[in-house]
């Protein structure tokens, strides 16, 4: 039986919880099955044996970006509705894992989320109140987030087996390629303004131009060697309060 619009809506809304039972054995597989349940119940209404087999197939190991899992849920639901042979479904699942993860990671985690966060931070540093700054981030980010989930679900259902072709050269991939320069410039601007504010509020005299130069060098070295730069950043973060407290105790 063909799923109703209410089943589609229920399945889409369940994709927000697709990682709820994430585990090292099936990864997001059980979450995919959970999200597909409204579709499977309708498709296999009155046939418990086929329903059990479909649920068992849906629970198998799967991975992908959580927002783009909506595409997998819809496409797999479409294949179940079209009575596609189980071996083809399994091959399709395997083929989908890589692209769904890579495209989503690069576009959402790599670009969209940092840009929205940095915009919210910039709003605060330029004088907006904390509630407004957090709202700027949340509204901007979730506008994109929900749009991606809707697009992924609708396209997944429409395309079925052709989803892989759809992901190659998708707008998400193109956007990621265009957004990264903005992202990096925002990081540079925000960290400089934040550092200036921290120094100003501390009431401690510092050689500001020397600190600015050293900060630029630290940022560039960490950009070239991110792993080592990250470790150095963590060490400097730990050292800072120790030095402050030691100075206070000694003084």
């Amino acid at each position, binding site marked *: 039986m063909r799923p109703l619009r209410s089943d589609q809506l229920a399945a889409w809304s369940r994709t*927000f919880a697709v*990682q709820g*039972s*994430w*585990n090292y*054995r099936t990864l997001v597989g*059980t979450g995919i099955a959970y999200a597909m349940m409204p579709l*499977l*119940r309708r498709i296999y209404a009155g046939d418990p044996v086929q329903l*059990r*087999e479909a*649920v*068992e197939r849906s*629970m198998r190991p799967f991975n992908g970006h*959580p927002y783009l899992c909506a595409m997998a849920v819809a496409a797999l639901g479409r294949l179940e509705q079209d009575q596609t042979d189980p071996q083809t479904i399994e091959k399709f699942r395997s083929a989908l894992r890589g692209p769904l993860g890579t495209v989503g*990671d690069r576009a959402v985690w790599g*670009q969209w*989320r940092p840009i929205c*966060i940095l915009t919210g931070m910039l709003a605060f540093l*330029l004088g907006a109140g*904390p*509630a407004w700054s*957090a709202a700027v*981030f*949340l509204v901007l*980010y979730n506008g994109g*987030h929900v749009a991606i989930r809707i697009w992924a679900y609708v396209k997944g259902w429409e395309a079925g087996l052709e989803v892989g072709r759809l992901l190659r050269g998708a707008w998400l991939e193109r956007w990621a390629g265009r957004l*990264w320069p903005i*992202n*990096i*410039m925002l990081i*540079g*601007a*925000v960290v400089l*303004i*934040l550092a200036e*504010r*921290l120094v100003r509020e501390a009431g*401690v005299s*510092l050689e500001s131009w020397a600190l600015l130069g050293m*900060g630029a060098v*630290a*940022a*560039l070295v*960490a*950009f070239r060697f*991110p792993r080592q*730069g*990250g470790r150095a*950043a*963590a060490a400097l*973060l730990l050292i*800072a*309060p120790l*030095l*402050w*407290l030691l100075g*206070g*105790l*000694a003084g």
Partner: protein
Amino acid sequence: MSWSELYLGPGNWILAVLAGAVLGMDAVSWPQVMVSRPLVSATIGGWLLGNPVAGMLVGLVLEIYALRHPPFGAAKYPDTGPAGLVAGAAYAASGGQAVGALLVSVVIGWGLGWVGTVTIHVRRRLNERIMSPAFDLAADPSLLEQRHRIAIWLDALRGGVLVAAFLVPSVLVVTLAVGTGPSDLGRYALASLVLGLAASAGAAARASAFGVRGWPLILAGAGLGLLLVFGGLT
């Protein structure tokens, strides 16, 4: 500041624990709207303890550190929801003025973030047990749905427990740091924080960049930041 000035009563504590549960769930389980980012979670912590501006300032520093840990593939990253809340609340409770308290709050938030990561790992192992045996779950789809929801509630419980366990000790530790004023070593402490932020920003920029060719853009961004600072817009 004296202990009696602390703005942390049972009502705030309960609200903070409930907020911690929501923030603990948000990052991975449901609904991933990113209220668990330190920018938001630390502000909520600050707001609960009467000073959202102080909370957000802690959140900003934690955010620069968290940005260099995008959750790509199997990468490990700090759980910033409950941790940000505790750090923001601790700094707000201390009055939100002293730099020493800010530094200690940030370190507490960062450390608690990694404690949260360990608890996420434990929960994922627990999920393996909850979501098995596969045959039984496939035979009874309602059971699968029920277990999935239990796993989500466990994540909420995890966030709530983290806040319940660490909020009061963190507030006390940060309040102790309030009394320490600027000193000669304090200059180096602040320089250490600023250089750490710069290094973290460099590493975060690389995580977003397509290759190594984007380095001039960090300097261009910093130049823009300088213009804003000297233009009096900050």
